[in-house]
């Protein structure tokens, strides 16, 4: 296998502030399309889409969006690779609208990997979990039929919703969908909860306890970048997460 013969990049280390146990982050899964593109030294196009946190503009404090950070993290780790992250995140969007936009964006942007941040607004809009699950599953199926790898970026941990049944139900459905379909799932909820419980003096959110701060975006980007690279390069060392 060409990947094994070439010098393999290590997954970018998590910065100390973002560090969480691997079990709280993601399990490597096959990403055949991304692996093939990298093996063939072809440019890799990543579509970042979904609900809040995918802000594409600089916030007042100069916060960089998480897709921009992922692009630089991946380019640093995968030296020599041409990575293009297309940011199509829309804050406050529910999965059914993202699903509609994904189909348009796939045709016009032709991505190799879709990073779908999903769930938060469906939970808050009280969308029926079955309806939500069906939307996400059918879109994942459609993307895979088109040889596009998918990674779900899970919901964020918000202390206020820690006991909200609807919120947790959607969180649970995302986990189950990822397990059943064998796609990459970045367990943002678990990672953020770990940090909240173990490093309470290190907030990942602004003072409103909802919007991510600079560190929150940085950690999110690191989690996603690490999960993608681990899936592409480390799969042969670790069993797939099931």
């Amino acid at each position, binding site marked *: 296998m060409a990947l094994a013969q070439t010098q393999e990049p290590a997954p970018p280390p998590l910065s100390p502030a973002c560090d969480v146990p691997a079990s709280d982050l993601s399990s490597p899964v096959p990403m055949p399309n991304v692996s093939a593109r990298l093996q063939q030294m072809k440019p890799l196009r990543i579509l970042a889409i979904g609900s809040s946190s995918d802000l594409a503009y600089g916030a007042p404090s100069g916060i960089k969006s998480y897709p921009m950070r992922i692009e630089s993290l991946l380019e640093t780790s995968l030296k020599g690779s041409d990575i293009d992250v297309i940011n199509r995140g829309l*804050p406050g969007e529910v999965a059914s609208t993202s699903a509609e936009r994904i189909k348009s964006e796939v045709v016009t942007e032709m991505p190799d990997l879709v990073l779908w941040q999903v769930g938060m607004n469906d939970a808050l809009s009280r969308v*029926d979990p079955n309806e939500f699950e069906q939307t996400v599953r059918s879109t994942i199926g459609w993307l895979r039929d088109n040889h596009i790898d998918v990674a779900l970026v899970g919901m964020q941990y918000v202390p206020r919703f820690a006991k909200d049944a609807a919120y947790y139900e959607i969180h649970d459905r995302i986990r189950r969908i990822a397990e059943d379909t064998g796609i990459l799932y970045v367990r943002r909820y678990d990672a953020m909860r770990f940090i909240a419980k173990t490093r309470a003096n290190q907030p990942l959110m602004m003072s409103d306890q909802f919007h991510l701060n600079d560190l929150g975006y940085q950690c999110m980007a690191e989690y996603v970048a690490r999960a993608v690279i681990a899936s592409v390069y480390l799969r042969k060392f670790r069993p797939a997460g099931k």
Partner: protein
Amino acid sequence: MRAANEVDFWRGFALVTIFLNHIPGLTFERVTFHNAALSDSAELFVFLAGWAMRLLVQGSASKLSPAALVVRLGGRALSLYAAQAVLTELAIAMLAACSILLDAPFLLDWHNASAVFLDPIRAHIGLVTLTYQLGYFNILPLYVVLTFMAPGIALIFRYAPYLLLPLSLAAYFAVLITGFNLPTWPVEGTWFFNPFAWQILYVLGFLFAGRDGLGGWARRNRKLLRMLALPVAIIGVPFALLDYAPDPISLPEPKLLFMFDKTYLSPVPLLSSLALVALFGGLFPRIMQHVQSLARFFAMLGRNSLNVFCIGSLLSLGGQIFRFAFGGRVATDAILVILGIGIMGWVAWVSEWRNQLQARRGEAAVSLPASASSAG
């Protein structure tokens, strides 16, 4: 106030459907027709907007000089633009107020609103240039652009009517082939409804509304069109129920031609919407005969479509916030729908009352000098 007619009735129907479709997760959203068709009420709304424009151009504006026609239609576009600006500001204020009242900062993100709060300098430029749109509030920006195109459409129709459809089709296919779309800013992306693709439906509504040309041909061949439309609509049902979309990987270029794409209004959803118009157009007299009160109610909504559209959009947003606060049970959803449609009806009724008062004031102003002169 004009009597209930078919165009107003279907416009009212589209407005109620848009209200329901824009509350994600709403129980009653599942019974709207987009669940069983490859097009939805946005297509119907744009088609009827083109139809209404033709009635205006051939009616009260038919005797206007070219310059006056441009001013008349341009003024209409400016009114819509102003409505879009006010509506967006109201929606932003609603989200801000509810985020304070409910102590819910995440409401500031809903409908893509967060740029206003986190990046207000650029967001405000985007709001007035229409490059920044709230999610679920993106039909009106499309409509604004189409009405700004309306003077051009009306002038081409007046001086070179046979050029209108070829030009519109050329623009439509050029967009489908190239994938061109307007960018959004400061939130990176593209327009949810590509106006250069959707203009085809506006122009078709305009042309089918006429009693000559394409409209005349359609009226003469109504039976044939219905026979052709029936299989198109029936074939769409399982695709819509299964949420099927073609795999672009197996499609030849240009892929947008063969997709079921909403942003670019690909030929399949376009044909689906035209088939539904062919099938259900002309049913109004029967609806009026059997459920007169419903027909009159929808027609009243349609007669006041801009006001009802604006309040319907805000009610959808209110409904979404209501569902967050009170949950999404069938009973609360039913209250929400009854209340929402009731308020839409009340707004239409008040709008007509206001129009009547204005008309009476106009009559009084005209009759006053006349009576004064006769007294003198």
